[in-house]
């Protein structure tokens, strides 16, 4: 019996801690999700409508950043150590990056939650609050603690990435002729584009927003900080998604009783994500003034090609499941589907996530389609879309995965298989209701990020179904999701409180077509990183130069620094001068 905790007892504690952090964020974030649903529809309004935005900020930050990324670092730590069969070089160092992330997340969360107080405390001469949503578009301003917390959190992930890389380098020295195992390959390529893309948000925070919130500079260029946010903002969605892909590629085939259909294509897919996930961010700015149509078109082409790795994934993953089903006696064109292990919540949760991700693929294609963005931009459609992607493909895969991982890192068997099965089914159903209604409401023009989408001057009208019916569906879906979250948390807690017992072995799927079939060049990370950089420069240098030229590095009509630091003004002027050439 070899579970992860037997092989890597030290790392298992870290993985467990990171997963528990993720679940705490999920618990609080999902509570706000339910409150939002009830508030928007006007069913029950617990918070004031002004506080709604504080809650929404917490929901976005806790779920989209904290929950997802804590789970990611847990998963990648598992993937690196398991697939390289090697310990992290130093556990103290590893706890260091985990601690950095915790501190950063707590700082941001404290700043957000202070916004609920009627009289927020004052810190650094400013009221503590951060009701700026997780996109924190300037000139809405948060307390410096919020920006600082986010920056520290991101830096923690950078150090974690370095930790995985040095583990890999050490492994490489000992095994110079071996192919990089697939899970490690996935973690490393993902970290590479994470470094590239999060540099954008780090610059936005450290160079512009933090000094501005501290009063060191007077203003910012809102289009510039927004563009830097989205430089990171599209890549971050793949940062959420890659761990889910990793589980679909390496765990799902095994659970189905089969093997991964193609190791080479899996590598191609991750290389494509490394290349294309950053030079696509401007597709979140199709509706922005100040960016030329030509740039938007180029970015759309990049984005459309980014569909390719996901479409390839759909084939490879389904074929791997089919392989398992057929090995277990499945026959017919579709009858083999019945041979899949539908009573295993780990399998079923991931398979249902994949199904809803296919649906999300459709709304994502619409979102990518430049001019059709007039129809859906900033409507509830978008919220429907990303609750299928990050809210299900990622979140439900993580929850289902936890039913496998928590036994791995505790040595304790899952508390109750039926509870797990009910939980994943409820999430699926709840999300079908909620996101379907959100998509349809969006087509009627119902906006997102709005506490009371009920207006004095007009009402939303649709050809099919009324707003009342859509609201009812959203509330039903949200309620099912909340119940599902509770069952999940109870199952995890009960498992962790249980006794040690028999748990599955720590292993992942073999491959039908193995790494020996993939060209060695696929493992050349330096090459792909270099190409990714070139693509980023091509996609971003001209738009960024134009934005700085139009609005100034530090904002419209204000030439930079006034109060404390004249040197920055000089640097700003210099950069403006260079870019202006």
């Amino acid at each position, binding site marked *: 019996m070899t579970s992860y905790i037997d092989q890597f007892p030290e790392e298992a504690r870290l993985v467990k801690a990171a997963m528990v952090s993720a679940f705490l964020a999920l618990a609080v974030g999902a509570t706000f999700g339910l409150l939002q649903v009830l508030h928007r529809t006007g069913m029950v309004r617990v918070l004031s409508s002004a506080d709604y935005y504080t809650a929404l900020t917490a929901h976005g930050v806790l779920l989209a950043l904290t929950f997802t990324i804590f789970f990611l670092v847990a998963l990648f730590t598992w993937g690196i150590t398991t697939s390289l069969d090697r310990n992290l070089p130093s556990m103290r160092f590893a706890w260091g990056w985990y601690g950095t992330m915790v501190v950063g997340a707590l700082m941001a969360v404290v700043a957000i939650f202070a916004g609920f107080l009627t009289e927020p405390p004052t810190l650094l001469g400013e009221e503590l609050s951060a009701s700026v949503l997780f996109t924190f578009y300037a000139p809405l301003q948060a307390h410096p603690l919020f920006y600082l917390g986010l920056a520290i959190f991101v830096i923690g992930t950078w150090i974690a990435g370095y930790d995985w890389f040095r583990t890999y380098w050490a492994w490489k020295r000992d095994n110079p002729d071996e192919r990089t195992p697939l899970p490690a390959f996935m973690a490393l390529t993902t970290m590479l584009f994470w470094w590239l893309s999060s540099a954008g948000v780090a610059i936005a925070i450290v160079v512009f927003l933090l000094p501005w919130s501290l009063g060191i500079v007077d203003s910012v260029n809102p289009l510039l900080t927004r563009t830097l946010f989205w430089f990171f903002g599209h890549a971050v969605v793949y940062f959420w998604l890659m761990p889910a892909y990793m589980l679909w590629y390496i765990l799902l085939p*095994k*659970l189905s*009783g*089969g093997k991964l*259909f193609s190791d080479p294509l899996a590598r191609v897919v991750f290389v494509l994500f490394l290349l294309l996930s950053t030079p696509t961010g401007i597709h979140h700015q199709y509706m922005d003034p100040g960016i030329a149509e030509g740039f938007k078109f180029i970015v759309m082409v990049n984005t459309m090609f980014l569909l390719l790795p996901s479409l390839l994934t*759909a*084939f490879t993953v*389904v*074929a791997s499941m*089919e*392989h*398992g*089903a*057929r*090995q*277990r*006696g499945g026959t*017919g*064109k*579709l009858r*083999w*589907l019945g*041979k899949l*292990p*539908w*009573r*295993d*919540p*780990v*399998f079923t949760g991931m398979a249902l996530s994949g199904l809803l991700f*296919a649906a999300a*693929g*459709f709304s994502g*294609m*619409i979102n990518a*389609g430049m*001019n*059709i963005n*007039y*129809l859906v931009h900033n409507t509830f459609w978008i919220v429907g879309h990303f609750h299928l992607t990050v809210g299900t493909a990622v979140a439900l895969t993580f929850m289902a995965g936890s*039913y*496998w991982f928590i*036994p791995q890192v505790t040595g304790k*068997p*899952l508390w109750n*298989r039926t509870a*797990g099965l009910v939980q994943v089914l409820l999430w699926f159903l709840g999300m079908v209701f909620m996101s379907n209604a959100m998509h349809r409401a969006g*087509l009627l023009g119902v906006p997102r990020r709005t506490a009371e989408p009920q207006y004095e001057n007009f009402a939303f009208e649709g050809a099919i179904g009324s707003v009342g019916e859509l609201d009812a569906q959203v509330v039903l879906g949200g309620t099912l999701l909340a119940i599902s979250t509770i069952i999940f948390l109870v199952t995890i807690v009960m498992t962790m409180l249980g006794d040690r017992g*028999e*748990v*599955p072995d720590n292993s992942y799927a073999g491959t*039908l*077509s193995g790494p020996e079939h993939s060209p060695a060049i696929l493992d050349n990370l330096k090459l792909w990183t270099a190409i990714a950089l070139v693509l980023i420069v091509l996609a971003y240098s001209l738009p960024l130069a134009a934005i700085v030229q139009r609005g100034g590095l530090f904002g419209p009509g204000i030439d930079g620094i006034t109060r404390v630091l004249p040197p920055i003004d000089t640097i700003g002027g210099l950069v403006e001068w260079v870019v202006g050439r």
Partner: protein
Amino acid sequence: MSQPTDPPGTPPDSAIERELTHDEFDPIGTAVLITLYFLILVGMWLFTYFVEFLGNGPTVVGVIG
């Protein structure tokens, strides 16, 4: 089916009836499903683009005059 007594996440090895290699395995089911998906995507795209979007005027247009 995996046995109800197996811990979840156990690969259902016990139930494997035959080993299929890459060349023996014909993923026809996947081909059927993915073709269906393709057709749905094309149909829904056409509807959303031409009916929901272009039929939803007024729209932002190029300056004519």
